[in-house]
């Protein structure tokens, strides 16, 4: 595959039409440019089921909700390519049911059916915990979004999404690290926090990033947390300028984490509530840290287990069992952010989508377009953004996958500009091959 040429080709052919995302506000029905899909589908389907008209939902009209004014952003990366067509389900199109006889999420109102969102799109029932955010206008999706690169390799596609330079192998740093370096300088070692053992590609680079171990053991005291120990090390490091600063930054970040842990355990004990499980343990910690320390502007967490090649299930089953704790983790995060939820946008993304049609093993293979999720106090929610390309045979990418009509960088660039308030010249650094000239303002913020 010739990736760079592909990008170039795509860039040329699409500046006019395909790639420019459409910011949709208000109640929107099917754009006039997609009539052939319906026309073709109608004769077959008429007798069986009637398709619902395409609808993107109507964003809840509301005023900007005040927070402390320090914008924050959290990326939740679903590694392994989540099946976006079963997350935000096009239940209004019979083609969806035809292509997925064993794994489709059934229509709203049926057992384990989708939660209706717009009359055409619905939410996987395992994501029910998120429904209040949709109803409250704080949850939105950008459907048919993703990377313009055609790679179906997990590692390559993740790499491209994390560097923000699809098709470009040797980008040194991740876009979240570049974002840190163009934000207002701060002496805090805790401007960006990643949960997990190592610093992910998305946060590698020049700017200092703190990472926090995950799980219950994360705040188990280690040797270095003992004051007499870290003071002795401090004496050792005192005479080394560069290493000394890193050491002191590390200790102060660690102290903050430990202080939070003891206070939250206190709280848990007081309420008599059990500690949340799995992902929620980490997201509650992240939420509290970001609420109490406005220096922390960026957060990152990766969640795996989405590569559902076999037996992925429908409203129940493997994928449902993954989505449920994810929804719990996200609601925990939103809740623990407290008033800072109004200053925060949580982005959920994945390297690519999965094949439109069910494979021979009750699963789906590596595809292309996916849905990006946005959750936050000032997300103009209760709406699906982007342009729905349709899912009839002609509309599919290479005849097999949901096509992409919104470049993931359009979403991220909009957030960077409108939410994180990063200016034009810096935007060039953030997404180098995707400059301000390409800026597609998506109207998804209040």
């Amino acid at each position, binding site marked *: *595959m*010739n*990736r*760079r040429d592909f990008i170039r080709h795509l860039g040329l052919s699409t500046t006019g039409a395909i790639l420019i995302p459409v910011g949709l506000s208000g109640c929107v029905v099917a754009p006039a440019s997609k009539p052939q899909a319906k026309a073709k589908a109608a004769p077959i389907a008429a007798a069986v089921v009637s398709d619902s008209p395409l609808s993107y939902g109507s964003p809840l009209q509301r005023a900007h909700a005040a927070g402390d004014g320090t914008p924050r952003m959290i990326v939740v990366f679903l590694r392994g390519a989540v099946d976006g067509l079963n997350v935000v389900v096009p239940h209004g199109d019979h083609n969806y049911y035809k292509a997925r006889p064993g794994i489709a999420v059934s229509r709203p109102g049926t057992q384990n059916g989708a939660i209706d969102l717009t009359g055409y799109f619905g939410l996987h029932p395992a994501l029910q915990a998120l429904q209040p955010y949709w109803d409250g206008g704080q949850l939105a999706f950008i459907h048919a979004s993703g990377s313009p690169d055609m790679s179906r*390799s997990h*590692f*390559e596609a993740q*790499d491209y999404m994390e560097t923000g330079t699809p098709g470009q*192998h*040797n980008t040194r740093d991740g876009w979240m690290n570049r974002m840190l370096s163009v934000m207002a300088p701060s002496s805090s*070692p805790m401007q960006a926090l990643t949960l997990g*053992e*190592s*610093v992910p590609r998305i946060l590698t680079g*020049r700017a*200092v*990033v*703190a*990472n926090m171990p995950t799980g219950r053991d994360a705040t188990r005291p*280690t*040797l*270095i947390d003992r004051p007499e*120990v870290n003071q*002795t*090390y401090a*004496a*050792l*490091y005192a*005479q*080394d*300028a*560069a*290493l*000394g600063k*890193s*050491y002191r*930054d*590390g*200790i102060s*970040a*660690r102290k903050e984490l430990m202080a939070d842990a003891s206070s939250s355990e206190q709280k848990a004990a007081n309420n008599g509530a059990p500690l949340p499980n799995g992902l929620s343990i980490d997201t509650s910690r992240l939420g509290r840290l970001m609420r109490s320390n406005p220096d922390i502007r960026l957060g990152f967490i990766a969640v795996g287990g989405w590569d559902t*090649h*076999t037996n992925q299930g429908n409203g129940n089953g493997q994928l449902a069992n993954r989505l449920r704790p994810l929804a719990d983790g996200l609601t925990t995060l939103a809740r623990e952010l407290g008033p800072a939820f109004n200053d925060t946008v949580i982005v959920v993304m994945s390297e690519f989508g999965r094949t439109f049609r069910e494979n021979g*093993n009750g*699963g789906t293979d590596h595809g292309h377009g996916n849905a990006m999720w946005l959750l936050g106090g000032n997300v103009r929610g209760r709406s699906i953004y982007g342009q729905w390309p349709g899912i009839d045979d002609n509309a599919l990418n290479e005849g097999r996958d949901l096509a992409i009509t919104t470049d993931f960088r359009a979403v991220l660039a909009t957030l960077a500009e409108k939410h994180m308030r990063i200016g034009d010249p810096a935007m060039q650094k953030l997404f180098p091959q995707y400059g301000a000239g390409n800026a597609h303002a998506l109207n998804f913020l209040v």
Partner: protein
Amino acid sequence: MSTRPRLLSIALLLTCVAALDANAQTEQAPLNDAEKALHVLNRLAYGPRPGDVDAVRHIGVKRYIEQQLNPDSLPMPPELTDKLSALSTYQLTSTQLYQQYGPPSFPPNTATPEEKNMARQRANKDITPQVHAARLWLATESPRQLQEVMTEFWFNHFNVFEGKEWVRYWDGEYEKDVLRPNALGNFRQLLGAVAHHPAMLYYLDNWLSSGVNTPEAKGRFKGLNENYGRELLELHTMGVDSGYTQADVISLARILSGWTIDEKGMKDGAQQPFIFNPRRHDAGDKLFLGQTIKGSGYQEGEQALDILARHPATAHFIAAKLVQYFVSDQPQPALSEKLARRFMSSNGDIKAVLHTLFDSPEFWARSNYQTKFKTPYQYVVSSLRATATPVLNVKPIDGVLNQLGQPLYGWLTPEGYKFSEEAWLNPDALLRRINFVNGLSNGKSPIARAETPPPAPGSAPATPLPNSAATVAVDPQQLIQTLTPTLAPHSLSTVSAAPANLQVGLILGGPDFMKR
């Protein structure tokens, strides 16, 4: 610190004139014998083991360097070679691994996802731990340390990623048979061996690449794939922005079209995984870096590799990388130029280039002594060597390298790991390093305990392996002696004043041992 000032810290201390004078003086002073011995052990090897500094001082650094540049002159300890021979899958060829650890995702791609998954799990269990063990045993125990250092250097230069499907099956052989034997050899031979190995053909997709409209350009093998051609120019030879164009990338991909993996032959036992498939090769003439390459099939590729290996940009690119690895993160243009000239005059003789490097005043300058921040791998391996911790279980090492951000064979993109302070110095990493070395001090590290397999159902609990419990606590005085003169006087006094049970962790977790 006063004996090993860094320019930056001096700049910060400008107000203290007396200290500045003292530092300026020591900065000029040549390294003494002990410092020279430590320096070669830190740069040509993965740091000293007990007794190494004295041994190098005894034979002299010149002789040590000569020995290291001629690894065959150094006998391998029989325990080490015996251990390696006992690694059953590590001794298999690519073909044997292919046959025994299928089913693959190769065409006709008939394996079910379950079969693929099982194959993946078997490989993770049977192949990968042995590849890791071999690397770690050699890094910690081989007397041919420079060969190991250069093997790691070239692995990063010609990086492949263990997690990309079939690379896992072949990266062990790639390192064992392609990189290590050529690590101090001739660059052109190394480049050629890499280009033919299935790990690289697979990793950078050249095995899929076919000339446009060639008879067998079908299905998965439909089109030209530029991936390898591009990285061959950008990362393996000339370096980015060195004058080649997109048209050269395409020409090179056309030249190499049909260089593929003989998966059909391997199924039938062919021992050579590489095959040139003329029915997928673009037979036209190509213009490559200003030269016309006549359509001549397989030979075009060899001709292109010749051109690349001889290209001055390649010499400069490799020279600058060696300088960064062995001397300093700061560019040393004069030294790079000297090495590039040696590279060209010796037709890419790596040993000759390194000889020039180890003879250079820059290599021995006090300003470049104890200044390189160790990568996680260097840090972990050097601490195992310093404490003489035997590697009986690689899992905890894999774990710590993962935590520190440098899993073995785990960099997924082709540029490999960085060797710079900028890439590795971050606050959390220091604390993790400190916690890791504190686990080595009491002789109870899980690294030094062989894993006991879980007892089979119904059988008696397994008895511990004989070699699993013998390690003793590390003696801080012995450790200081092993590492001297690593620790600055200030550090020594801080360590000596600390409680005895913290001393080993302080020696290894302090700023002095973070550097080489």
